[in-house]
């Protein structure tokens, strides 16, 4: 079964100026073991596509005009709120861009991780290595153990001690690791990473990308990696979708799309990244370029 199957997704958002259509018929299929990079400029609808998958767009202002998002065969858009809560964190993990705003500064890292672990564990105790009907105290103990294991796994040194630290005691890269640990704790089948490395230094970025790559190898999960950095996509993704103004212009295996782009917009986007061979003054921006949109 296809892990994630987005079909003809159309989303409109309401603002003071009235309703605007944001997504125009997004089609995307993600299988297990694939890392899909989604690239596009600011406002192209990358993040809204990602948020739609875990149905995190409030309605109103959001409204789906047409389409479906099938996650393991079930339409997310038609699921009840209760079903969605069971899905989020447990089957669909999410990592957001800014590690500083997505951790609560008033709670210890451990508390926040254990919360997530307990949430996943209460729906399915096997996540915590327990059988159904385990007592509350057993769940709590197991949740903490899993939280420490997970911190260790994402490369936080001395995880047993650091788990009782507060977020401000961690550096940006470590906070991002905590968020990844949090997303992975429920052993999700699909990971949605919305600009996971944009706020980080290149050296830390390389480590985080390696971490995501290893998780996919190890657990055979699917990943939707949203980014505006073509370099990141080229490095870690197996497939790529190029978005422009709410449409996917081109999608396919990363080697095909980035090496032999069919769409002139993809080509232009690639040309706007300075490489080692680009001479000064030769870089091309996208000023005024309107891509071909197949209706």
């Amino acid at each position, binding site marked *: 079964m296809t892990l994630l199957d987005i079909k003809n997704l159309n989303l409109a958002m309401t603002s003071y100026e009235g309703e605007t259509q944001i997504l125009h018929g997004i089609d995307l299929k993600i299988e297990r073991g694939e890392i899909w990079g989604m690239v596009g*400029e*600011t406002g192209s609808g990358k993040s809204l596509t990602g948020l739609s998958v875990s149905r995190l767009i409030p309605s109103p202002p959001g409204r789906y005009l047409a389409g479906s998002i099938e996650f393991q065969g079930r339409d997310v858009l038609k699921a009840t709120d209760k079903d969605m809560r069971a899905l989020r964190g447990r089957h669909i993990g999410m990592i957001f861009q800014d590690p500083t705003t997505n951790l609560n500064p008033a709670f210890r890292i451990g508390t926040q991780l254990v919360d997530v672990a307990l949430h996943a564990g209460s729906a399915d105790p096997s996540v915590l290595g327990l059988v159904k009907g385990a007592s509350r105290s057993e769940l709590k103990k197991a949740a903490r153990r899993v939280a420490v294991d997970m911190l260790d796994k994402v490369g936080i040194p001395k995880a047993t001690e650091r788990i009782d630290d507060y977020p401000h005691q961690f550096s*940006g890269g470590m906070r991002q690791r905590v968020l990844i640990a949090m997303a992975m704790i429920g052993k999700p089948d699909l990971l949605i990473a919305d600009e996971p490395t944009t706020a980080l*230094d*290149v*050296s830390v*970025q*390389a480590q985080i*990308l*390696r971490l995501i*790559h290893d998780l996919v190898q190890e657990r055979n999960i699917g990943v939707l990696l949203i980014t*505006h*950095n*073509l*370099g*990141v996509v*080229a*490095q*870690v993704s197996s497939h790529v979708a190029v978005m422009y103004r709410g449409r996917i212009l081109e999608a396919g295996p*990363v*080697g095909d799309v*980035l*090496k032999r782009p069919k769409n002139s917009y993809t080509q*232009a*986007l*690639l*040309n*706007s*990244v*300075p*490489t*080692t061979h*680009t001479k*000064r*003054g030769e*870089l*091309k*921006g*996208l*000023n005024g370029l309107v891509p071909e949109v197949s209706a």
Partner: protein
Amino acid sequence: MTLDIQNVSKTFSGPRQGFFGRGESFSALDGVSLSIKKGASFGLVGESGSGKTTLTRCVLRLETLSAGSILYDGADIHKLTPLQMRRLRSRLQIVFQDPYASLDPRMTVHDIVAEPLVIHSDVVNLNAHQRTERVLELLLQVGLRSEHLFRYPHEFSGGQRQRIGIARALAVRPEFLILDEPTSALDVSVQADVLNLLHRLQQELGLTYFFISHDLGVIRYICDDVAVIYRGKLVEQGPVADIFDNPQSDYTRMLLNAMPDPDPDLSPFRKVEVG
């Protein structure tokens, strides 16, 4: 030689502890020396917390130095009188990193770009009408249009805002521009336009650039010389081609390897899978 930074150190004292005690002090810059030639583009690369921004603040005398000296055209910046410093500031301008935070939301583009002309009126000496003319000329120079004159910052995109920031920096006809991560908040496509604008302006106006960035690709594209800074110390410096093609230090090599290349064939992960 335009800017000569000699053996500059900057130490921030630690947090207060008790009545008289002080926590451990932090050395943000440690014996940094570099010189920037007139008309050249000098790049400074480093990760967050490495001291890049502290160095630019020292050059603008927004921080005092703990040791060393900074010479601009032979004069020690940190020994100038306040009046001399104000005169110098009209020759030394800065473009900030975040175009959303560095423009006053309650001022029109006209007022933003004209402000340095008012502050440095003893140097530029324009009346109100001439100032407006100059602002218009600047807007056209950075690729904006005359109808943008009386709009507010929120009406512009990130790239356009950065152009306004550049216009403001150029208003008093400086010779030396500090660019503190001017493109890191922008999309790649917009970044390309802003980089090309900076390149064109440098050729037209003969500017000297001190370009701070953590993006090695951008530095390689726009700069002649580059220095790599790590934890307040310069690890390596030299012509861009030398440093990038033949890095001497492990840190520079690590940075270059960590830079994600847009060519999928060069991915370290795929190499593992094939081999």
